[in-house]
């Protein structure tokens, strides 16, 4: 199969993070024992640019946990990539921000847990909210374009309007209101995170109204909660079509959640293979590329090149087989598994409604984070 040209690289440079958000999409059993070195990342960045990649997102974990982040940003700019930092901003002091700006950082996507400090800190499992507010002001003052990202779930979805107002007051150019997707820690905590149908309907109205009100001022992206949809999301614009993820230990993934969701797929490592070979030739990138792998009802579906059969990780997590149709699809023989989860929640008593979650923990073997003041 002829491989298309990739456009974006997600560089997950560490799994270490000072926050403990229970919806984190990182693997619950992450290995972080041998993070790629600065030189190894620099080589990966150059190889990605040679393949055609034009954008890089530095993510994690918390990418600021790595002292060499400005060096990696500089390497990416030298390779002509558009550089985006996806961050909690914990650890972003004046010196680091200056170093990042001087390295050529193009834009920052800052995560918030809520507009309300107490709730935000409870969700993050850390006192982080005020530091994020301070960081947002500094990023604006440094003249770097700012996007805000809110992960939406049952505990914060009723404050959607206030969260949008926070984005306005921080003068963000763009805000992403992303309903939680159930992978990694979020899958483990699904019973505590999934919003009710009533909440989802209300939130959609608020997002639609805000989009119209703020048109031309702030771009609002509302990511739908896919369990409540009838058709699956067009995950990754197709497997192995546009995106490459490299995780902290150098594994190359078609999707950031694939390593934990699809255990029977073997992922190549940049320490052993060239990125070009992995993208074009590897089993992991070719397994679900194109449409030949598709089962029915996808194979004969007119939507098959629109939604690509949905999400492979979701199929694996909910049906035990990554090659199945995403069970969110109403045509999937496994849709009942999604409906069952929704029915359990929407017909339940307030007790289940207040279900506890498990906070994300750092990988056991990860070095302790640098203390940031």
């Amino acid at each position, binding site marked *: 199969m002829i491989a298309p040209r990739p*456009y974006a690289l997600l560089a997950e440079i560490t799994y270490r993070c000072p926050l403990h958000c229970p919806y984190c999409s990182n693997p619950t059993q992450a290995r972080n024992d041998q993070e790629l070195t600065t030189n190894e990342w620099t080589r990966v960045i150059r190889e990605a640019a040679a393949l055609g990649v*034009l954008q890089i997102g530095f993510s994690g974990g918390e990418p600021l946990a790595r002292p060499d982040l400005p060096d990696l940003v500089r390497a990416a700019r030298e390779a002509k990539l*558009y550089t985006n930092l996806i961050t909690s901003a914990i650890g972003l002091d004046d010196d680091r921000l200056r170093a990042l700006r001087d390295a050529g950082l*193009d*834009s920052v996507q800052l995560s918030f847990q809520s507009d309300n400090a107490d709730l935000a800190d409870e969700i993050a499992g850390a006192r982080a909210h005020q530091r994020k507010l301070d960081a947002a002001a500094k990023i604006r003052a440094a003249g770097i*374009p700012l996007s805000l990202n809110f992960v939406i779930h049952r505990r914060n979805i009723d404050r959607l309007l206030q969260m949008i107002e926070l984005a306005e007051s921080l003068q963000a150019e763009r805000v992403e209101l992303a309903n939680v997707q159930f992978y990694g820690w979020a899958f483990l905590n699904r019973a505590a995170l999934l919003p009710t149908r009533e909440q989802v309907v209300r939130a959609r109205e608020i997002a639609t109204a805000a989009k119209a009100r703020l048109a031309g001022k702030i*771009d609002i992206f509302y990511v739908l909660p896919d369990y409540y949809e009838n058709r699956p999301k067009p995950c990754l614009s197709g497997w192995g079509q546009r995106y490459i993820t490299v995780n902290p230990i150098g594994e190359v993934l078609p999707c950031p959640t694939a390593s934990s969701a699809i255990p029977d797929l073997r992922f190549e490592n940049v320490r052993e293979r060239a990125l070009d070979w992995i993208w074009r030739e590897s089993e992991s990138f070719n397994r679900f590329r194109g449409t030949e792998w598709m089962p029915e009802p996808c194979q004969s579906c007119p939507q098959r090149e629109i939604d690509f059969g949905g999400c492979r990780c979701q199929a694996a997590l909910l049906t035990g087989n990554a090659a199945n149709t995403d069970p969110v699809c109403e045509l999937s023989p496994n849709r009942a598994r999604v409906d069952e989860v929704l029915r359990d929640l929407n017909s339940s008593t307030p007790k289940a409604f207040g279900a506890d979650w498990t906070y994300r923990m750092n990988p056991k073997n990860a070095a302790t984070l640098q203390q940031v003041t």
Partner: protein
Amino acid sequence: MQTPTIAGSAQPKLTRGVRLQTDSKTGNSVLLFPEGVLELNETAQEILTRCDGRTVSEIIQALADEYNVDLEMLAADVRQTLADLQRRKLIELT
């Protein structure tokens, strides 16, 4: 299609955070911005490489001098392209 009303004296410039560069894979121009990549058609490419402080009228005149095309059609084409880019917040008109 109706030509959008954009003043001839307006100065188009890239929005902060938007970068214009050559795609080494294709040799064509692309716009890079936080959400993604826009591959430019020839018209957009010709216009954007001239957004260096010049006004809309000056850009139209420069293109007319370079290419032997109908001035009225060219002007409509330029305004349409600028309006599209402005709607996507990729350029600002000052």
